[in-house]
């Protein structure tokens, strides 16, 4: 399954993956206003990496991911989710109450829901990727 390297798949994967990743970030950021959001964006990004996995195998994908292990992504995602719980505490509101901050200069609003959504994005991406990669690794070990 892993070795199914055709020219079309290779080329498609190489070109499509960055586009898909870019698209996933776009989906993530616009998610609060238009269809999209952390879950969908995380799945799109996971799809991008999965395509690459099928085209080039696990070790090549690990090279693309560089230092980041998908398991670390899970942890980072959960951590961001937890971090967004606390800011409300400092202004004497119940936990998880959304906080909004204007970023001066550009027309962009930072907020705890955005942090939270990024956390969801990373957790979904990390979880799906970790599952698929582990399965493929094991697959390779046992022909």
């Amino acid at each position, binding site marked *: *399954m892993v070795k199914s390297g055709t020219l079309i798949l290779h080329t498609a994967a190489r070109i499509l993956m960055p586009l898909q990743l870019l698209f996933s970030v776009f989906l993530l950021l616009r*998610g*609060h*206003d*238009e*269809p*999209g*959001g*952390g*879950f*969908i964006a995380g*799945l*799109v990004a*996971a*799809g991008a990496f*999965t395509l690459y996995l*099928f085209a080039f195998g696990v070790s090549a994908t690990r090279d693309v991911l560089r230092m980041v292990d998908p*398991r670390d992504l*899970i942890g980072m*995602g*959960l951590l961001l*989710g*937890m971090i*967004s*719980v606390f800011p409300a505490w400092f202004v004497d509101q119940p936990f*998880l109450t*959304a906080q*909004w901050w204007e970023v001066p200069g550009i027309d962009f*609003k930072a*907020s705890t*829901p*955005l942090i*939270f*959504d990024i*956390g*969801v994005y990373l*957790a*979904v991406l*990390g*979880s*799906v990727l*970790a*599952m*698929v990669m*582990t*399965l*493929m*690794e*094991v*697959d390779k070990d046992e022909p």
Partner: protein
Amino acid sequence: MQLAVLSGFVLAAFAPLLHRWFGGRTSLVLAVFPAALALWFLGQVPAVMDGEVLTLALEWVPSLGMSLTFVIDGLSLLFALLITVIGTFVLIYAGGYLKGHPDLVRFHIVILAFMVSMLGLVLADGLLTMFVFWELTSITSYLLIGFNHADLEARKSARQGLFVTVAGGLALMAGLVMLGIAGGSWSLSELNAMGDVLREHDLYAPLLICLLLGAFTKSAQFPFHFWLPNAMAAPTPVSAYLHSATMVKAGIYLLARLHPGLGGTEMWIGILSVVGALTMFTGAFLAIRHTNIKKLLAYSTVMALGTLTMLLGIGTEGALIAFATFLLAHSLYKGALFMVAGILDHETGTKDVTAMGGLRPLMPVTALVALIAALSLAGVPPLFGFIAKELMFESVLEAGRFRALILLLAFSAAFLTIAVAAIVGLRPFFGERRQTPRVAHEAPASMLIGPAVLAILSLLLGLTPMLAGTGLLTAAASAVIGEPVQVSLSLWHGINLPLLMSLASLGLGYALFRRWDLVRGRLARLDPLMARGPEAGYEAFMHGVTVVSDWQTRILQNGYMRNYIMVMVLTLIGLVGNSLLLRHAPAIAFHVDVRFHEVVVVGMLVMGALFATVTRSRLSAVVSVGIMGFSIALTFILFSAPDLGITQLLVETLTVILLVLVLFRLPRFASLSTPVERIRDIIVAGSAGVLITLLVLTAWGIDQFVPISGYMIDNSVPLAHGRNIVNVILVDYRALDTLGEIFVLALAAIGVIAMLKLRAGDKAAKKATPEKEPYDG
């Protein structure tokens, strides 16, 4: 203050770090915590003596009426002082007793946690917070009894103590809930102010029984006394602290605390005074059968706990003053004696008193401390124990009901206790020198300071009874009685009946001590009878539980998964179908508004699902499931859910990848069922399908609640600054749910990794078991 007390939990968590820094002196460092608290509590004594009640409120969950309120009155202050003062010395003592023990860190963690729980228990005003602390003391006690967990006996005793106290804890919880309902309040101080309402309430009898069960199990009252002597498997500092001075008095504390609200009825007086007196006698009688010094002391603790219960039962003003006095006296001398027992065990290598003798020249300080504490236990003037015993006899003579019985039991217990005191305080130190497994010498200072201070206090308070009497004991007795009283203690009451009883018991007790070896031999003949005591009942009960659970597991957990599922589905069909047909005759409004393309999509969906069930090939099953999934995505998009459509599409793609990766590693579809089974399953599954269809159709006609999504739609932009309402719900309105969900997802991923990667171990196991079929087919 609450935070100061609770910071002990934090300190417990940091104990390993402190061990790294301070090594063997950690005990001393940790002892600063209870010592500081003790000083703070001492500072409150003058105010409380003036009759003040300090209430420290800290809101916790205001919406549930739960708060962490501490109330400091005479009773709780007396307990808090005992806990912190004895706790300080126990920590110092443990530093010597467990010196170099590899698990000393664990000991420190648990004993600190216990200390905080116990303080919380006696200070808490809320019924529920008190209950939480109560259970925490049971758990920490379990961990401490089983401290030497490599020892089977210790584990067994720990489990026994846990089962008995936690079973009582369940009863207590029921009792507290009933108490809360009966009084309409969850605050102890408010409940105590409405005694008449409670005593007249219909729930009085059941709630009292439940509360008493909780208190009696915790405080080792007959017939639940057996766990306490077994708890002596714990290290001696634990026995001195938990199982004589503090935790076992939690039940007594509860009864004393609730006395103003619940006491004084026929039922209260009858049960408490008789059970207390029986416990008192049982403890004293069983004590002299033993030669193990810790068991002797444990049974004499049972005797003391019985005395306290009995005094609460008698309930006259004199009895309650005697209660407070006896409580203090007992904690002082028993704590000291236990620590002496630990010294003897530590220095001689044996716990058997008959193996010790003539140790006084070798360990003069220990001998002196033991002598003072034992004299107080025996109730010899001028020690504090004497005053307590005098008062106890006086109150027994005042008892209204069952006076003769109580008097007889109390007198017998008194002279048996004097024999116990002599066995513990005289026998190891006087007489001819005996060879002990270890050559004894004086204990280190860290182990002597605790018992010495406690023994000196026993002497000091005995000589100047006014010091204790006018001070704390007045406040404590007032809190138990519910109204202010004046306590004046004195050593000399003139020649009266209690004094004569004291003298007679001293004589009898000493005579018994002289003939102890003989009497013990005679009593050994009773052993077969003893083997049928309450502990045998406990064993039989536990055995019964094992047998029943074994039996029901074999019936219910038969291992065939489809049987479980069949039972679940049939139950669902039965229960839901029944109420559906009976309550809502399915009134289905058929106004079908369909478009052609929608029918095509839904038709594809249904066909995909059905084809997946009939196909014989894995590949076509995966394909048809895929078709179903994409049809569902289309349905979502057609019916105004773009986010869902996208998500479904992506997940569907990933699912196919997953199935490709895993499913083709598995065998082909197998046809294993017989045609009869298949028809049966079709009928069951079909009826479930029909039921669901009817349920969905019926549910649309019912509007029981106003949908909450109106609020979400209206406030999405003004409050949450988001125009995609679904996303706003996910990351803002219901973010806590989403947080939980990503945790679930992460757990599933970690589970997958664990199952696939951690497999080194079972490869070896697979080689060990030959390829055969050990399972019946």
